[in-house]
């Protein structure tokens, strides 16, 4: 069983009602795509905000990555809207 830290920012933080959680992932969750499916299964805002076709970005251990990235125990995973700084 893998444990990861999940971080949410900006609109997603507000929609999910939390900025972070520590999650124990079932063994079938191996990639970010798997993680997204697992989060969508929570329903509600999780299902709608993370639906296919919605614009969001993913980072693992503070580097932006694609949804095919493989997760490791202890990873810091962040999900956030496209950035709007500057």
């Amino acid at each position, binding site marked *: 069983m893998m444990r990861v830290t999940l971080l949410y920012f900006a609109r997603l933080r507000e929609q999910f009602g939390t900025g972070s959680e520590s999650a124990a992932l079932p063994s079938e969750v191996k990639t970010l795509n798997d993680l997204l499916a697992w989060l969508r299964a929570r329903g509600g805002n999780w299902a709608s905000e993370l639906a296919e076709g919605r614009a969001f970005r993913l980072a693992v251990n*503070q580097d932006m990555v694609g949804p095919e990235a493989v997760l490791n125990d202890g990873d810091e995973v962040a999900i956030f809207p496209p*950035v709007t700084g*500057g």
Partner: protein
Amino acid sequence: MKIQVQTAPFDLNAEVAALYAANPKVGAVAAFLGLVRDVNEGDGIATLTLEHYPGMTERALAKIVDEAKGRWDMLDCTVIHRVGEMKPTEPIVLVAVASGHRQDAFAACEFIMDYLKTRAPFWKKEATPDGERWVEARESDDAAAARWQNKG
């Protein structure tokens, strides 16, 4: 190279002078200042609040600056991005690049801004007369960043 995320305003004179005053090899400084505007998408803006991802922000900015150093002759560089609540006319971000010659300074400064806009984890929330809203990312910013993949 100085990369900083802070709530406080910054002193443009001091930041820019730090890039050239002690280094007589510097012939050019290109600087960019991004400011809070009072109108966006047709609505009045009372305040802008910047959120970021502490840790990743500094890391992302350092990677962008490193990439710029690999492409252009940069002698020094400062990136300061503010977070928290700001009002119209307040500076949000400063990118300043010191180089021997102007072409490198301009190109590196614009490159860093374009990449910062699409790769550094900052998010803007605007307070309008109709309430608060998150600023949407612009496709034109993705296009601005993408054009550096074909030149430099």
